[in-house]
C-alpha cells in the first residue's frame, strides 16, 4: 500500500470541483479605451500580475472568457479610424486571431440607407448546450450571433430588421454620448431559446424563441419626466443582470432608478427608492451574487442637473443589498473619502463566483479596484490604465 500524507488523503476525498478551485488562478479581463489587459491573480486573489496592453490603441469594449471551455477569449475592438472587429484567443492572449466575418449589417438595397456597425459593444456566450454559440450587441443597436466560437457572425434579422423593433431603437441621435447601444444580452441558463436584452435607448426585451420574436418588458419602469412610459424608445436600461441562483429574478440599473423583477411577473419594481436620497439610485453597472438572489450591488453616479456622470459629491462608493433591494448599505471602506470624481461604466463592475464573492470594478480614470469580501473592504489593484470600459472576472481552465 502506498504511503500518503494526510494532506493527500484529504485532497482525494474533496470533490474534483473543489480541488480545482483551490489551485485555479483567477483572471480579470479589463477592456479600455486604449487596449485590453489581463490581470493574473494568485489563488488567494491577493496579488495580480498585469499582462498587456493587448491591442494597444484599440478601443476595446468588452473581453469575455467562454465559461464553457474556460480557455476561449473574445475581444470586441476598433480604433478611432479602423472599423470594428472581433479577436479570438485560445491561449489566454498569447496569440489572437481576427474573426473572418465580424458583426456587420446586411448591405442595403439600392436607394435605401444601410446601417453600419460602429462598434461591437457587448459579448455574451451562448447557452451551455450550444458550445460554440455567442451573441454580440452593437452600436447602433444590432443583435448578432456566431455559431462557430466567434469566427463568423450573422445578423439576427428577427430583431434587427423588424419594422416595429426598429421603432423601439429610435434614431441614431437618440442613444448614449458614445452612440446607441444594444447590451445586457442574457441567456436563461434553463432554456437556450429564452433571451433578454437591453437597449440604450430602446428598453428591455424578451424572446422565448431564440431571438425570432421579441416583446418589450418595460412595465413599471420610469422614464424621463413628461415622456410617455408606454413608448418603448423612451426607455433606457443601463445594465440588466439575471440571478444565476434564481433565473426568475433579474435586477436592472436604469437611467431612472434601480429595479427588480420576479418572473413570471411582467412588472419591474423600483427597489432603488430605498437608496439614500442624497445619493440617489442612478448609475450604470448592476452586479448580482452568484449564489444568493437577494444580494446585489450597484455603483451610484451623479445623475442630477446636467448629468455630471461622476461619483455623487466626489465620494465614490458601491451600495449593496442583502434582501432583494428592500435596504441598501454603503460600501466604501478603502475608497477615497473625498475629491474623487471618477465613476464606473455599465460593463465595468462584476463579481467572481468564489466564496466569499470577489467584486471588481474599473474606473473612468483608469483604476482597477477589488474587494475579496463582498464589498466590505476595497483595494486598488492597478492605477494609470486608460479609461476602463469593461471588467470581467474569470476562472481559466
Amino acid at each position, binding site marked *: 500500500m502506498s504511503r500518503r500524507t494526510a494532506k493527500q488523503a484529504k485532497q482525494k476525498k474533496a470533490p474534483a470541483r473543489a480541488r480545482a478551485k483551490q489551485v485555479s488562478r483567477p483572471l480579470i479581463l479589463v477592456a479600455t479605451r486604449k487596449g485590453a489587459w489581463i490581470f493574473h491573480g494568485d489563488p488567494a486573489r491577493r496579488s495580480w500580475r498585469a499582462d498587456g496592453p493587448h491591442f494597444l490603441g484599440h478601443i476595446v469594449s468588452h473581453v469575455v472568457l467562454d465559461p464553457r471551455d474556460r480557455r476561449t477569449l473574445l475581444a470586441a475592438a476598433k480604433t478611432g*479610424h479602423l472599423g470594428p472587429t472581433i479577436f479570438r484567443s485560445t491561449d489566454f492572449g498569447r496569440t489572437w486571431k481576427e474573426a473572418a466575418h465580424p458583426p456587420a449589417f446586411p*448591405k442595403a438595397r439600392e436607394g435605401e440607407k*444601410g*446601417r453600419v456597425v460602429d462598434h461591437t459593444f457587448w459579448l455574451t456566450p451562448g447557452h451551455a448546450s450550444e458550445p460554440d454559440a455567442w451573441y454580440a450587441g452593437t452600436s447602433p443597436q444590432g443583435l448578432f450571433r456566431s455559431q462557430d466560437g466567434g469566427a463568423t457572425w450573422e445578423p439576427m434579422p428577427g430583431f434587427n430588421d423588424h419594422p416595429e423593433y426598429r421603432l423601439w431603437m429610435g434614431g441614431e441621435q437618440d442613444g448614449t454620448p458614445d452612440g446607441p447601444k444594444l447590451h445586457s444580452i442574457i441567456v436563461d441558463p434553463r432554456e437556450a431559446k429564452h433571451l433578454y436584452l437591453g437597449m440604450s435607448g430602446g428598453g428591455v426585451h424578451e424572446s422565448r424563441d431564440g431571438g425570432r420574436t421579441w416583446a418589450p418588458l418595460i412595465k413599471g419602469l420610469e422614464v424621463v419626466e413628461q415622456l410617455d412610459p408606454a413608448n418603448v424608445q423612451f426607455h433606457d436600461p443601463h445594465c440588466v443582470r439575471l440571478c444565476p441562483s434564481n433565473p426568475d429574478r433579474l435586477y436592472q440599473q436604469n437611467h431612472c432608478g434601480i429595479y427588480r423583477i420576479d418572473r413570471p411577473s411582467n412588472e419591474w419594481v423600483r427597489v432603488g427608492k430605498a437608496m439614500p436620497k442624497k445619493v440617489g439610485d442612478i448609475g450604470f453597472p448592476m452586479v448580482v451574487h452568484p449564489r444568493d438572489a437577494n444580494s446585489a450591488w450597484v455603483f451610484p453616479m451623479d445623475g442630477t442637473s446636467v448629468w455630471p456622470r461622476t461619483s455623487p459629491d466626489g465620494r465614490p462608493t458601491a451600495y449593496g443589498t442583502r434582501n432583494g433591494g428592500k435596504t441598501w448599505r454603503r460600501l466604501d471602506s478603502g475608497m477615497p473619502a473625498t475629491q474623487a470624481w471618477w465613476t464606473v461604466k455599465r460593463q465595468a463592475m462584476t463579481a467572481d463566483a468564489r466564496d466569499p464573492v470577489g467584486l471588481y470594478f474599473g474606473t473612468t480614470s483608469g483604476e482597477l479596484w477589488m474587494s475579496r469580501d463582498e464589498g466590505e473592504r476595497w483595494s486598488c489593484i492597478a492605477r494609470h490604465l486608460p479609461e476602463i470600459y469593461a471588467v470581467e472576472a474569470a476562472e481559466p481552465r
Partner: protein
Amino acid sequence: MKIVVPSPLVSYTQAREVEARGATLAAVFADLDRRYPGLRFRVIDEQDKLRRHMRVFVNGEQEFDLARSLEHADTVQIVQALSGG
C-alpha cells in the same frame, strides 16, 4: 500595382508598400482582402463606403468612388484621415 498602406494596417500587411491587382478600387480592395484577410472591413464598411476617417488617393488625388478604374501603373495610397485629438 503599388499600394501604400498606413501604419494602422501594417499589422495585416507587414509592410508599408504592397502589391495588389484589380481594374477598379473595389477590385483592388477585394484583392487586398484575399492577400491580407480582414483588411478590407477595417477600411470599407458593410455598405461598401469608405469609413468616415479613412481616405484613398490615386496617384496623389483623393478618390471616394470605389468604382474608379485603375491602370497597372497607378499608385493607390490608403491614408488615415487627420481627425480627432
